[in-house]
């Protein structure tokens, strides 16, 4: 019922009503800050091999290692302090999730709007391809592409983008197509107003709310997919472990009861993904007029 001035304020006022969503947002911001300042908050640089000692490997939480400080969450098979490794891993996971999310957003939106704006054969071609790809599981596509392209950050992001752009394309297409059909767009195109202006002024803004929703969900999905690929040994090189790789590294030791190596990075991963999804759900509910009773 609040009639605050800007739409953004009204959005926030509604968002604030759901305590769980606010908590999730706080968690997401906190995790991003931890990732940004990983080097400051970590007791150790886990990527600097000179820092690592095999003497310290696979130690339980609370162990005081050769560095002279307490390993709060224990150490991994390479002797890394697990807490530091999690902070750095968080950084890689978030980096890759954001990068893959934004590249897919850009490519997908461009394709979707092009299809809706141009129409005809190009529309049919683009959307058929997108639909065909959507019926194919993303994980499989990413798997094959990583297998074909090889390992590395760029390849991984490429695979995630290839697996996810179609969702953005579908969403942008749906929203743009609905708007494109309206009389005022036809009218705008009949005037000397350039097509670019129509796209920027009318089509793009109308696609924004649904795209924001898809973007939150897909960033969480990218992070989850990256972790899965890394767990399967198809993600990043071992020297710079992401959260998925940390979990994978600890997996063989789980049988012998050294659970912490896998479990703590996993807990971090899940908190990150669940928090992003809760925020995404809330944003989606607020954008969805059908749920506004």
């Amino acid at each position: 019922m609040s009639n605050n001035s800007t739409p953004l304020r009204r959005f926030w006022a509604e968002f604030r009503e759901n305590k769980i969503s606010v908590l999730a947002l706080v968690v997401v911001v906190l995790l991003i800050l931890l990732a940004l300042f990983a080097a400051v908050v970590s007791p150790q640089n886990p990527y600097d091999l000179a820092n690592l000692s095999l003497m310290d490997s696979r130690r339980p939480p609370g162990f005081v290692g050769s560095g002279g400080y307490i390993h709060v969450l224990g150490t991994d098979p390479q002797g890394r302090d697990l807490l530091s490794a999690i902070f750095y891993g968080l950084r890689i996971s978030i980096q890759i999730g954001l990068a893959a999310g934004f590249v897919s957003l850009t490519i997908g939106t461009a394709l979707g709007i092009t299809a809706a704006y141009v129409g005809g054969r190009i529309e049919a071609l683009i959307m058929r391809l997108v639909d065909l790809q959507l019926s194919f599981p993303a994980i499989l596509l990413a798997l094959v592409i990583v297998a074909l392209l090889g390992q590395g950050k760029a390849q991984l992001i490429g695979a995630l983008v290839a697996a996810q752009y179609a969702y953005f394309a579908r969403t942008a297409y749906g929203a743009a197509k609905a708007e494109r059909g309206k009389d005022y767009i036809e009218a705008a195109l009949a005037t000397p107003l350039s097509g670019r202006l129509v796209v920027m002024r009318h089509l793009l803004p109308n696609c924004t709310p649904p795209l924001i929703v898809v973007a939150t969900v897909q960033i969480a999905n990218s992070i989850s997919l990256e972790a899965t690929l890394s767990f399967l040994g198809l993600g990043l090189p071992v020297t710079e472990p992401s959260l998925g790789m940390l979990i994978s590294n600890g997996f063989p030791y789980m049988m012998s009861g050294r659970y912490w190596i896998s479990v703590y990075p996993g807990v971090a991963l899940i908190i990150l993904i669940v928090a992003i999804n809760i925020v995404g759900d809330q944003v989606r509910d607020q954008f969805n007029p059908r749920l506004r009773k």
Partner: protein
Amino acid sequence: MLGFIIQRFLQAAMVMAVMSVIVFCGVYAIGNPIDIVIPPEATQDIREEAIRRLGLDRPLYEQYFIFISNLLQGDLGRSFVYNIPVLELIGGRLPATLELVLISVIAATILGVSLGIYAGYRPDSRISKTIMAVSVLGFSVPSFWVGLILILFFAVNLGWLPAGGRGETTEIWGVAWSFPTPNGLSHIVLPAVNLALFKLAMMIRLARAGTREIMLTDTIKFARAAGLSETAILRRHLLKLISIPIITIFGLELGSTLAFAVVTETIFSWPGVGKLIIDSIGVLDRPVMVAYLILVAFLFVTINFVVDLVFALIDPRIRHGVSK
């Protein structure tokens, strides 16, 4: 009806043709195709023989037709690692995967649809809210992580269930299955639960959304106005109406579960095609990768075709050729 089947069959064939072009491009156009079909340590003679056999010296469109004709004859090359035809290799692994996937998807569907209908029918009850919270969790938590936790709890800590492998199998129609033997069944529980959880969350969401939408329709209002009991409304009207979206998703999920089996099979060392493909990617056994891709594409297309047929059987509007 027959026209519908023919039309759908042609569509399936079209999709398969497009897929074959994509796979062909993916495999033959990226990098040097000869490296994909010949092990790196092969002699010069073998290399040249293969180039000639595959026609890699011919124009691209001819190469595509050679690829297709080999494909149609079931010749997908030999595995570098196992040195047997890949079709045979994959065929031997397929039952294990199918067994796992079918058990998971059927269990997830029955349970998920029941819970989802309940949650959609009584959206404000506490049980429904719990169901939805659990489904959000099942949706968000990566499946490999759930597998890990299942192993940690039920295999390592409690020691109730085995953590990997297929256990004892028994032969039915010349194919080995795990589920009929008690030991095999105990091996299938954890991987099946792992694979089913994600699908369960999905089915709950879908059935709930469908139920909520259907319960608000005039069909239900009219049935209530005629004095039908809630049981009759749920059993006769709702179940019939909700079967359409459920069957669509069931088909799609069967396909995507085949893909997700890759993760579960790896965690639980389940000797199916998923584990095979991960191992093959690890050692760059490319003919296996190509064959797996084509197999999955084929299964996808087949499943979609079957779903369409089932639709035609249950939905009178399609059966009578009325467009929706």
